[in-house]
Protein backbone atom coordinates (compact mmCIF):
# COMPACT_ATOMS: atom_id res chain seq x y z
CA UNK A 1 0.00 0.00 0.00
CA UNK A 2 1.16 3.51 -0.69
CA UNK A 3 1.33 6.19 2.00
CA UNK A 4 -1.93 7.63 0.74
CA UNK A 5 -3.65 4.26 0.62
CA UNK A 6 -2.79 3.71 4.26
CA UNK A 7 -4.01 7.19 5.12
CA UNK A 8 -7.29 6.47 3.34
CA UNK A 9 -7.73 3.19 5.17
CA UNK A 10 -7.21 4.91 8.52
CA UNK A 11 -9.80 7.53 7.57
CA UNK A 12 -12.22 4.76 6.68
CA UNK A 13 -11.65 2.97 9.98
CA UNK A 14 -12.31 6.16 11.91
CA UNK A 15 -15.46 6.93 9.96
CA UNK A 16 -17.11 4.11 11.90
CA UNK A 17 -17.02 6.15 15.11
CA UNK A 18 -19.50 8.89 15.72
CA UNK A 19 -18.68 9.25 19.39
CA UNK A 20 -15.50 10.85 20.65
CA UNK A 21 -14.99 8.35 23.41
CA UNK A 22 -15.25 5.44 20.97
CA UNK A 23 -12.63 7.17 18.89
CA UNK A 24 -10.35 7.51 21.90
CA UNK A 25 -11.00 3.95 22.91
CA UNK A 26 -9.75 2.91 19.49
CA UNK A 27 -6.70 5.15 19.74
CA UNK A 28 -5.89 3.58 23.10
CA UNK A 29 -6.15 0.15 21.48
CA UNK A 30 -3.86 0.96 18.55
CA UNK A 31 -1.32 2.46 20.93
CA UNK A 32 -0.53 -1.18 21.67
CA UNK A 33 0.39 -1.80 17.99
CA UNK A 34 3.25 0.69 18.05
CA UNK A 35 6.57 -1.10 17.46
CA UNK A 36 8.29 -0.62 20.76
CA UNK A 37 11.44 1.44 20.79
CA UNK A 38 14.42 -0.44 22.19
CA UNK A 39 15.45 0.79 25.63
CA UNK A 40 18.89 1.73 24.26
CA UNK A 41 17.22 4.20 21.88
CA UNK A 42 15.15 5.86 24.61
CA UNK A 43 17.84 8.49 24.93
CA UNK A 44 17.71 12.22 25.37
CA UNK A 45 18.80 12.57 21.75
CA UNK A 46 15.70 10.74 20.64
CA UNK A 47 13.44 12.55 23.09
CA UNK A 48 11.06 15.14 21.74
CA UNK A 49 9.97 17.19 24.68
CA UNK A 50 6.64 18.84 25.07
CA UNK A 51 5.41 20.17 28.36
CA UNK A 52 2.46 17.79 28.28
CA UNK A 53 3.82 14.46 27.15
CA UNK A 54 7.12 13.02 26.02
CA UNK A 55 7.79 11.34 22.70
CA UNK A 56 10.76 9.18 21.78
CA UNK A 57 11.45 8.47 18.13
CA UNK A 58 14.19 6.38 16.57
CA UNK A 59 14.89 5.89 12.89
CA UNK A 60 17.16 3.29 11.22
CA UNK A 61 17.92 2.70 7.59
CA UNK A 62 17.21 -0.90 6.54
CA UNK A 63 17.40 -1.99 2.86
CA UNK A 64 17.20 1.65 1.79
CA UNK A 65 13.98 2.12 3.75
CA UNK A 66 13.47 3.89 7.05
CA UNK A 67 12.25 1.87 10.02
CA UNK A 68 10.67 3.88 12.83
CA UNK A 69 10.18 2.88 16.43
CA UNK A 70 8.71 5.23 19.01
CA UNK A 71 7.10 5.60 22.39
CA UNK A 72 5.29 8.14 24.54
CA UNK A 73 4.45 8.37 28.22
CA UNK A 74 0.85 9.33 27.36
CA UNK A 75 -1.37 6.69 25.78
CA UNK A 76 -3.37 8.95 23.47
CA UNK A 77 -0.18 10.49 22.14
CA UNK A 78 1.19 6.98 21.70
CA UNK A 79 -1.92 5.96 19.77
CA UNK A 80 -1.54 8.84 17.35
CA UNK A 81 2.17 8.06 16.97
CA UNK A 82 1.18 4.49 16.21
CA UNK A 83 -0.93 5.78 13.32
CA UNK A 84 1.91 7.95 12.05
CA UNK A 85 4.39 5.09 12.22
CA UNK A 86 1.92 2.86 10.37
CA UNK A 87 1.94 5.43 7.57
CA UNK A 88 5.66 6.18 7.50
CA UNK A 89 7.39 2.97 8.52
CA UNK A 90 9.30 0.95 5.91
CA UNK A 91 9.22 3.71 3.28
CA UNK A 92 12.03 5.12 1.21
CA UNK A 93 13.22 8.58 2.22
CA UNK A 94 11.93 9.90 -1.10
CA UNK A 95 8.42 8.56 -0.43
CA UNK A 96 8.36 10.29 2.93
CA UNK A 97 9.71 13.53 1.52
CA UNK A 98 7.04 13.54 -1.18
CA UNK A 99 4.19 12.69 1.17
CA UNK A 100 1.58 14.94 2.62
CA UNK A 101 -0.21 13.93 5.80
CA UNK A 102 -3.93 14.58 5.61
CA UNK A 103 -5.45 11.75 7.62
CA UNK A 104 -4.98 13.42 11.02
CA UNK A 105 -7.15 16.32 9.99
CA UNK A 106 -9.72 14.04 8.36
CA UNK A 107 -10.15 11.93 11.49
CA UNK A 108 -10.57 15.04 13.60
CA UNK A 109 -7.30 14.92 15.52
CA UNK A 110 -5.68 18.00 14.02
CA UNK A 111 -5.83 19.79 17.38
CA UNK A 112 -3.09 17.39 18.42
CA UNK A 113 -0.76 19.03 15.96
CA UNK A 114 -1.32 22.52 17.27
CA UNK A 115 1.65 24.00 19.11
CA UNK A 116 -0.51 24.66 22.18
CA UNK A 117 -0.95 20.94 22.77
CA UNK A 118 2.77 20.79 23.37
CA UNK A 119 2.62 17.03 23.13
CA UNK A 120 5.60 16.62 20.88
CA UNK A 121 3.60 15.38 17.89
CA UNK A 122 4.21 18.42 15.74
CA UNK A 123 7.95 18.20 16.42
CA UNK A 124 7.77 14.50 15.73
CA UNK A 125 6.29 15.07 12.28
CA UNK A 126 9.07 17.54 11.53
CA UNK A 127 11.67 15.10 12.79
CA UNK A 128 10.36 12.31 10.54
CA UNK A 129 10.80 14.58 7.52
CA UNK A 130 14.27 15.56 8.69
CA UNK A 131 15.27 11.90 9.01
CA UNK A 132 13.98 11.34 5.47
CA UNK A 133 15.99 14.29 4.21
CA UNK A 134 19.15 13.13 5.98
CA UNK A 135 18.88 9.51 4.86
CA UNK A 136 18.06 10.62 1.35
CA UNK A 137 21.26 12.60 0.99
CA UNK A 138 23.15 9.69 2.55
CA UNK A 139 21.73 7.30 -0.05
CA UNK A 140 22.51 9.63 -2.90
CA UNK A 141 26.13 10.16 -1.91
Amino acid at each position, binding site marked *: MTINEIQDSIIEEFSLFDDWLDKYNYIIEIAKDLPEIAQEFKTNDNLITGCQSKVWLNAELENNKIRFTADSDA*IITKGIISLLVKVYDNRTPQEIMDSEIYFIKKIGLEENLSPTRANGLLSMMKKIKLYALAYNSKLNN
Partner: protein
Amino acid sequence: MSLDVRKIRDDFPILKQNLYSGQLVYFDNGATTQKPIQVLDILNEYYSKHNSNIHRGIHYLSEKTTQAYEKARTNIRKFLNAKLDEEIIFTSGTTEGINLIAYSFGEKYIHEGDEIIVTRMEHHSNIVPWQMLCERKKAKLKVLDFDVHGVLKIEELDSLITDKTKIISLTHVSNTLGTINPVKEIIQKAHAKNIPVLIDGAQGIQHQDVDVQNLDCDFYVFSGHKIYGPTGIGVVYGKKEYLDEMPPYKGGGDMIKTVTFEKTVYNDLPFKFEAGTSNYIGAIGLDHAIRYISDIGLKNIANYEAELAKYATNQLSNIPGITIYGRAEEKSSIISFLVDNIHHFDVGMVLDKMNIAVRTGTHCTQPIMDFFEISGTVRASLSFYNTVEEIDLLVEGVKKVKSLFN
Protein backbone atom coordinates in the same frame (compact mmCIF):
# COMPACT_ATOMS: atom_id res chain seq x y z
CA MET B 1 -24.08 28.68 50.07
CA SER B 2 -25.11 32.29 50.06
CA LEU B 3 -24.49 33.06 46.40
CA ASP B 4 -27.15 32.94 43.74
CA VAL B 5 -24.96 31.00 41.34
CA ARG B 6 -27.69 30.70 38.68
CA LYS B 7 -27.99 34.45 38.53
CA ILE B 8 -24.22 34.86 38.48
CA ARG B 9 -23.88 32.41 35.59
CA ASP B 10 -26.25 34.57 33.55
CA ASP B 11 -23.58 37.27 33.67
CA PHE B 12 -21.04 35.01 31.91
CA PRO B 13 -22.13 34.40 28.31
CA ILE B 14 -19.24 32.03 27.56
CA LEU B 15 -20.49 29.51 30.10
CA LYS B 16 -23.71 28.97 28.17
CA GLN B 17 -22.11 27.45 25.11
CA ASN B 18 -22.20 23.83 24.10
CA LEU B 19 -19.02 22.05 23.11
CA TYR B 20 -18.78 18.51 21.74
CA SER B 21 -21.79 16.99 23.42
CA GLY B 22 -23.02 19.35 26.08
CA GLN B 23 -22.49 22.54 28.01
CA LEU B 24 -19.00 23.75 28.77
CA VAL B 25 -17.76 22.93 32.26
CA TYR B 26 -14.97 25.40 32.88
CA PHE B 27 -12.50 24.36 35.57
CA ASP B 28 -9.43 26.17 34.26
CA ASN B 29 -9.93 29.34 36.27
CA GLY B 30 -6.38 29.23 37.59
CA ALA B 31 -5.18 29.83 34.04
CA THR B 32 -7.69 32.52 33.29
CA THR B 33 -11.16 33.47 34.46
CA GLN B 34 -14.15 34.23 32.25
CA LYS B 35 -15.48 37.76 31.94
CA PRO B 36 -18.87 38.98 33.09
CA ILE B 37 -21.05 40.93 30.68
CA GLN B 38 -20.41 44.05 32.76
CA VAL B 39 -16.73 43.89 31.77
CA LEU B 40 -17.43 42.93 28.15
CA ASP B 41 -19.88 45.82 27.82
CA ILE B 42 -17.47 48.38 29.18
CA LEU B 43 -14.70 47.25 26.80
CA ASN B 44 -17.11 47.52 23.90
CA GLU B 45 -18.38 50.89 25.07
CA TYR B 46 -14.89 52.34 25.44
CA TYR B 47 -13.69 51.12 22.08
CA SER B 48 -16.89 52.25 20.37
CA LYS B 49 -17.43 55.60 22.03
CA HIS B 50 -14.56 56.91 24.12
CA ASN B 51 -11.27 55.51 22.80
CA SER B 52 -8.49 58.07 22.92
CA ASN B 53 -4.93 57.94 24.19
CA ILE B 54 -4.52 59.06 27.77
CA HIS B 55 -2.36 61.70 29.47
CA ARG B 56 -1.60 63.36 26.15
CA GLY B 57 -4.57 64.83 24.36
CA ILE B 58 -6.27 68.02 25.45
CA HIS B 59 -9.42 67.09 23.63
CA TYR B 60 -12.69 65.81 25.03
CA LEU B 61 -12.21 62.07 24.48
CA SER B 62 -8.67 61.99 25.80
CA GLU B 63 -9.72 63.86 28.90
CA LYS B 64 -12.61 61.44 29.54
CA THR B 65 -10.47 58.35 29.02
CA THR B 66 -7.68 59.71 31.19
CA GLN B 67 -10.20 60.33 33.95
CA ALA B 68 -11.55 56.78 33.67
CA TYR B 69 -8.01 55.35 33.70
CA GLU B 70 -7.03 57.32 36.78
CA LYS B 71 -10.34 56.44 38.41
CA ALA B 72 -9.49 52.79 37.82
CA ARG B 73 -6.23 53.38 39.66
CA THR B 74 -8.06 54.96 42.59
CA ASN B 75 -10.62 52.15 42.74
CA ILE B 76 -7.90 49.51 42.68
CA ARG B 77 -6.08 51.41 45.42
CA LYS B 78 -9.25 51.27 47.51
CA PHE B 79 -9.81 47.61 46.67
CA LEU B 80 -6.32 46.77 47.99
CA ASN B 81 -6.64 49.32 50.78
CA ALA B 82 -3.36 50.91 49.74
CA LYS B 83 -2.54 54.38 51.06
CA LEU B 84 -1.78 56.22 47.85
CA ASP B 85 -2.90 56.11 44.23
CA GLU B 86 0.71 56.47 43.14
CA GLU B 87 1.49 53.14 44.79
CA ILE B 88 -0.63 51.45 42.10
CA ILE B 89 1.22 50.79 38.85
CA PHE B 90 -0.41 49.29 35.80
CA THR B 91 1.55 46.53 34.06
CA SER B 92 0.63 43.86 31.54
CA GLY B 93 0.25 41.18 34.21
CA THR B 94 1.85 39.37 37.13
CA THR B 95 4.87 38.23 35.12
CA GLU B 96 5.70 41.73 34.02
CA GLY B 97 5.07 43.00 37.54
CA ILE B 98 7.59 40.61 39.07
CA ASN B 99 10.08 41.36 36.31
CA LEU B 100 9.65 45.07 36.94
CA ILE B 101 10.37 44.68 40.64
CA ALA B 102 13.17 42.14 40.21
CA TYR B 103 14.89 44.43 37.72
CA SER B 104 14.25 47.75 39.33
CA PHE B 105 14.56 46.76 42.99
CA GLY B 106 17.58 44.75 41.96
CA GLU B 107 19.25 47.73 40.32
CA LYS B 108 18.88 49.77 43.46
CA TYR B 109 19.32 47.30 46.29
CA ILE B 110 21.00 44.06 45.16
CA HIS B 111 24.78 43.75 45.12
CA GLU B 112 27.28 40.94 44.72
CA GLY B 113 26.88 38.30 47.41
CA ASP B 114 23.37 39.39 48.43
CA GLU B 115 20.64 36.82 48.88
CA ILE B 116 17.05 36.54 47.68
CA ILE B 117 14.59 34.02 49.11
CA VAL B 118 11.77 32.38 47.16
CA THR B 119 9.88 29.17 47.91
CA ARG B 120 9.87 25.79 46.19
CA MET B 121 6.20 26.23 45.26
CA GLU B 122 6.64 29.35 43.13
CA HIS B 123 5.38 29.72 39.58
CA HIS B 124 8.29 29.99 37.16
CA SER B 125 7.42 33.70 36.87
CA ASN B 126 8.50 34.15 40.46
CA ILE B 127 11.70 32.17 40.00
CA VAL B 128 13.21 33.10 36.65
CA PRO B 129 13.24 36.93 37.03
CA TRP B 130 15.15 36.48 40.31
CA GLN B 131 17.56 34.01 38.72
CA MET B 132 18.21 36.56 35.98
CA LEU B 133 18.82 39.21 38.60
CA CYS B 134 21.14 36.90 40.56
CA GLU B 135 23.12 36.20 37.42
CA ARG B 136 23.38 39.90 36.64
CA LYS B 137 24.41 40.92 40.14
CA LYS B 138 26.23 37.75 41.25
CA ALA B 139 23.67 37.34 44.01
CA LYS B 140 22.32 34.08 45.43
CA LEU B 141 18.84 32.61 45.23
CA LYS B 142 17.74 30.61 48.29
CA VAL B 143 14.70 28.38 48.51
CA LEU B 144 12.22 27.77 51.32
CA ASP B 145 10.87 24.21 51.19
CA PHE B 146 7.39 22.81 51.68
CA ASP B 147 6.30 19.50 53.17
CA VAL B 148 4.38 16.58 51.61
CA HIS B 149 1.07 18.31 52.26
CA GLY B 150 2.25 21.36 50.35
CA VAL B 151 2.71 23.51 53.45
CA LEU B 152 5.70 25.84 53.67
CA LYS B 153 8.27 24.95 56.32
CA ILE B 154 8.05 28.35 57.99
CA GLU B 155 10.23 27.14 60.84
CA GLU B 156 13.14 26.94 58.38
CA LEU B 157 12.78 30.56 57.35
CA ASP B 158 14.75 31.92 60.30
CA SER B 159 17.80 29.87 59.42
CA LEU B 160 17.46 30.75 55.74
CA ILE B 161 17.53 34.48 56.44
CA THR B 162 20.99 35.99 56.85
CA ASP B 163 22.25 39.54 57.02
CA LYS B 164 22.71 39.27 53.25
CA THR B 165 19.01 38.64 52.58
CA LYS B 166 17.63 41.60 50.62
CA ILE B 167 14.13 40.50 49.63
CA ILE B 168 11.71 37.58 50.05
CA SER B 169 9.33 36.86 47.20
CA LEU B 170 6.57 34.29 47.54
CA THR B 171 3.19 33.36 46.26
CA HIS B 172 0.03 34.16 48.20
CA VAL B 173 -1.67 31.01 46.89
CA SER B 174 0.06 28.14 45.08
CA ASN B 175 -1.30 27.81 41.54
CA THR B 176 -0.63 24.07 41.64
CA LEU B 177 -1.18 22.98 45.24
CA GLY B 178 -3.79 25.55 46.24
CA THR B 179 -1.96 26.25 49.50
CA ILE B 180 -2.80 29.64 51.00
CA ASN B 181 0.49 30.71 52.50
CA PRO B 182 0.68 32.48 55.88
CA VAL B 183 2.01 35.59 54.19
CA LYS B 184 1.29 37.91 57.11
CA GLU B 185 3.39 35.78 59.45
CA ILE B 186 6.20 35.60 56.91
CA ILE B 187 6.08 39.38 56.37
CA GLN B 188 6.31 39.94 60.12
CA LYS B 189 9.31 37.64 60.39
CA ALA B 190 10.98 39.36 57.43
CA HIS B 191 10.24 42.87 58.69
CA ALA B 192 11.73 42.02 62.08
CA LYS B 193 14.98 41.82 60.10
CA ASN B 194 14.17 44.77 57.81
CA ILE B 195 13.66 42.59 54.75
CA PRO B 196 10.95 43.62 52.30
CA VAL B 197 8.50 41.05 50.96
CA LEU B 198 6.88 40.68 47.55
CA ILE B 199 3.63 38.74 47.36
CA ASP B 200 2.68 37.12 44.05
CA GLY B 201 -1.07 37.53 44.21
CA ALA B 202 -1.91 35.96 40.83
CA GLN B 203 -3.94 33.22 42.56
CA GLY B 204 -4.75 35.11 45.74
CA ILE B 205 -6.46 38.32 44.78
CA GLN B 206 -9.60 36.79 43.22
CA HIS B 207 -10.44 34.47 46.10
CA GLN B 208 -10.19 36.54 49.26
CA ASP B 209 -10.01 40.05 50.69
CA VAL B 210 -6.53 41.48 50.31
CA ASP B 211 -5.58 44.45 52.47
CA VAL B 212 -2.02 45.47 51.71
CA GLN B 213 -1.78 47.72 54.76
CA ASN B 214 -2.97 44.98 57.06
CA LEU B 215 -0.61 42.46 55.47
CA ASP B 216 2.07 45.15 55.45
CA CYS B 217 3.57 43.61 52.31
CA ASP B 218 6.02 45.80 50.43
CA PHE B 219 4.87 44.65 47.00
CA TYR B 220 1.74 42.85 45.85
CA VAL B 221 1.39 41.83 42.22
CA PHE B 222 -1.55 40.43 40.26
CA SER B 223 -3.07 39.93 36.79
CA GLY B 224 -6.34 41.37 35.55
CA HIS B 225 -7.37 38.35 33.53
CA LYS B 226 -7.33 36.06 36.56
CA ILE B 227 -9.74 38.33 38.41
CA TYR B 228 -12.46 38.41 35.72
CA GLY B 229 -10.88 41.35 33.90
CA PRO B 230 -9.30 41.62 30.45
CA THR B 231 -5.97 40.09 29.43
CA GLY B 232 -2.88 42.25 29.12
CA ILE B 233 -3.46 44.30 32.24
CA GLY B 234 -2.00 43.79 35.69
CA VAL B 235 -1.14 45.67 38.82
CA VAL B 236 1.92 46.23 40.95
CA TYR B 237 1.27 47.62 44.38
CA GLY B 238 4.48 48.89 45.93
CA LYS B 239 5.20 50.96 48.99
CA LYS B 240 6.08 54.49 47.96
CA GLU B 241 9.27 54.42 50.01
CA TYR B 242 10.62 51.68 47.70
CA LEU B 243 9.06 52.80 44.42
CA ASP B 244 10.49 56.29 44.86
CA GLU B 245 14.00 54.91 45.16
CA MET B 246 13.74 52.34 42.39
CA PRO B 247 14.90 53.35 38.90
CA PRO B 248 12.50 53.02 35.94
CA TYR B 249 12.25 49.61 34.34
CA LYS B 250 11.48 50.73 30.81
CA GLY B 251 12.15 54.01 29.03
CA GLY B 252 9.77 55.79 26.70
CA GLY B 253 6.84 58.13 26.53
CA ASP B 254 4.79 59.12 29.59
CA MET B 255 7.54 58.13 32.05
CA ILE B 256 9.58 61.28 31.57
CA LYS B 257 9.40 64.93 32.62
CA THR B 258 11.96 66.38 30.25
CA VAL B 259 14.13 64.81 27.59
CA THR B 260 17.27 66.29 26.11
CA PHE B 261 20.17 64.39 24.63
CA GLU B 262 22.24 65.44 27.63
CA LYS B 263 19.84 64.36 30.35
CA THR B 264 16.36 62.97 30.84
CA VAL B 265 14.38 63.67 33.98
CA TYR B 266 11.98 60.93 34.93
CA ASN B 267 8.36 61.51 35.76
CA ASP B 268 6.93 61.03 39.25
CA LEU B 269 5.18 57.95 40.51
CA PRO B 270 3.29 56.06 39.21
CA PHE B 271 4.07 57.27 35.66
CA LYS B 272 7.78 56.60 36.10
CA PHE B 273 6.94 52.90 35.73
CA GLU B 274 4.36 53.21 32.95
CA ALA B 275 6.40 53.83 29.81
CA GLY B 276 4.56 53.98 26.51
CA THR B 277 0.86 53.82 25.90
CA SER B 278 -0.52 51.73 28.71
CA ASN B 279 -3.41 49.34 28.31
CA TYR B 280 -5.85 51.98 29.50
CA ILE B 281 -8.99 50.23 28.29
CA GLY B 282 -7.72 47.08 29.97
CA ALA B 283 -7.31 49.06 33.20
CA ILE B 284 -10.86 50.40 32.89
CA GLY B 285 -12.10 46.86 32.23
CA LEU B 286 -10.21 45.63 35.28
CA ASP B 287 -11.80 48.37 37.37
CA HIS B 288 -15.23 47.09 36.31
CA ALA B 289 -14.27 43.47 37.02
CA ILE B 290 -13.25 44.50 40.50
CA ARG B 291 -16.49 46.40 40.97
CA TYR B 292 -18.36 43.29 39.85
CA ILE B 293 -16.73 40.96 42.37
CA SER B 294 -16.85 43.62 45.08
CA ASP B 295 -20.61 43.81 44.59
CA ILE B 296 -20.86 40.06 45.12
CA GLY B 297 -18.44 40.37 48.02
CA LEU B 298 -15.06 38.69 48.37
CA LYS B 299 -16.16 37.05 51.61
CA ASN B 300 -19.20 35.53 49.90
CA ILE B 301 -16.98 34.38 47.07
CA ALA B 302 -14.43 32.88 49.46
CA ASN B 303 -17.12 31.02 51.42
CA TYR B 304 -18.84 29.65 48.36
CA GLU B 305 -15.59 28.55 46.73
CA ALA B 306 -14.41 26.92 49.96
CA GLU B 307 -17.60 24.86 50.17
CA LEU B 308 -17.42 23.92 46.52
CA ALA B 309 -13.76 22.92 46.85
CA LYS B 310 -14.55 20.84 49.93
CA TYR B 311 -17.30 19.05 48.08
CA ALA B 312 -15.06 18.47 45.05
CA THR B 313 -12.19 17.20 47.21
CA ASN B 314 -14.49 14.77 49.04
CA GLN B 315 -16.10 13.48 45.87
CA LEU B 316 -12.80 13.07 44.04
CA SER B 317 -11.20 11.41 47.08
CA ASN B 318 -13.88 8.72 46.93
CA ILE B 319 -12.61 7.57 43.54
CA PRO B 320 -10.22 4.64 44.05
CA GLY B 321 -6.70 5.31 42.83
CA ILE B 322 -6.87 9.08 43.04
CA THR B 323 -4.04 11.10 44.57
CA ILE B 324 -4.57 14.75 45.42
CA TYR B 325 -1.42 16.91 45.50
CA GLY B 326 -1.69 19.72 48.03
CA ARG B 327 -3.42 18.89 51.28
CA ALA B 328 -2.91 22.08 53.23
CA GLU B 329 -5.49 23.04 55.85
CA GLU B 330 -5.54 26.54 54.43
CA LYS B 331 -6.34 25.87 50.82
CA SER B 332 -7.87 27.70 47.89
CA SER B 333 -10.23 26.17 45.32
CA ILE B 334 -7.43 24.56 43.30
CA ILE B 335 -7.34 20.77 43.16
CA SER B 336 -4.38 19.00 41.55
CA PHE B 337 -4.68 15.26 41.13
CA LEU B 338 -3.63 12.12 39.32
CA VAL B 339 -5.60 8.92 38.99
CA ASP B 340 -4.06 5.44 38.92
CA ASN B 341 -1.04 5.54 36.63
CA ILE B 342 -2.88 7.40 33.91
CA HIS B 343 -0.93 10.23 32.31
CA HIS B 344 -2.33 13.69 33.10
CA PHE B 345 -2.41 14.47 29.38
CA ASP B 346 -4.64 11.46 28.72
CA VAL B 347 -6.98 12.47 31.54
CA GLY B 348 -7.24 16.00 30.21
CA MET B 349 -7.82 14.87 26.63
CA VAL B 350 -10.73 12.66 27.59
CA LEU B 351 -12.25 15.19 29.98
CA ASP B 352 -12.04 17.74 27.17
CA LYS B 353 -14.20 15.52 25.00
CA MET B 354 -16.66 15.38 27.88
CA ASN B 355 -16.84 19.19 27.66
CA ILE B 356 -14.75 19.67 30.81
CA ALA B 357 -11.87 22.15 30.66
CA VAL B 358 -9.05 21.35 33.08
CA ARG B 359 -5.36 22.12 33.04
CA THR B 360 -2.77 19.37 32.66
CA GLY B 361 1.00 19.45 32.86
CA THR B 362 3.44 21.12 35.19
CA HIS B 363 1.46 24.37 35.57
CA CYS B 364 4.75 26.29 35.25
CA THR B 365 5.88 24.83 38.56
CA GLN B 366 8.46 22.23 37.61
CA PRO B 367 10.14 22.26 41.05
CA ILE B 368 6.83 21.09 42.58
CA MET B 369 6.67 18.23 40.08
CA ASP B 370 10.28 17.32 40.88
CA PHE B 371 9.43 17.31 44.59
CA PHE B 372 6.59 14.81 44.09
CA GLU B 373 8.56 12.97 41.35
CA ILE B 374 5.75 13.26 38.81
CA SER B 375 5.67 14.72 35.32
CA GLY B 376 2.52 16.75 35.90
CA THR B 377 -0.97 16.77 37.33
CA VAL B 378 -4.53 17.39 36.28
CA ARG B 379 -5.69 20.63 37.83
CA ALA B 380 -9.27 21.67 38.41
CA SER B 381 -9.41 25.27 39.58
CA LEU B 382 -12.86 26.42 40.65
CA SER B 383 -14.57 29.77 40.61
CA PHE B 384 -17.74 31.12 42.19
CA TYR B 385 -19.61 30.55 38.91
CA ASN B 386 -19.01 26.81 39.10
CA THR B 387 -21.67 24.53 40.55
CA VAL B 388 -22.05 21.32 42.51
CA GLU B 389 -23.58 19.75 39.38
CA GLU B 390 -20.41 20.58 37.46
CA ILE B 391 -18.31 18.90 40.14
CA ASP B 392 -20.48 15.81 39.71
CA LEU B 393 -19.76 15.89 35.97
CA LEU B 394 -16.03 16.09 36.71
CA VAL B 395 -16.22 13.12 39.06
CA GLU B 396 -18.19 11.17 36.47
CA GLY B 397 -15.60 12.18 33.86
CA VAL B 398 -12.69 10.94 35.97
CA LYS B 399 -14.49 7.62 36.50
CA LYS B 400 -14.95 7.37 32.74
CA VAL B 401 -11.24 8.03 32.24
CA LYS B 402 -10.46 5.21 34.64
CA SER B 403 -12.64 2.78 32.75
CA LEU B 404 -11.13 3.78 29.41
CA PHE B 405 -7.51 3.38 30.42
CA ASN B 406 -7.69 0.38 32.73
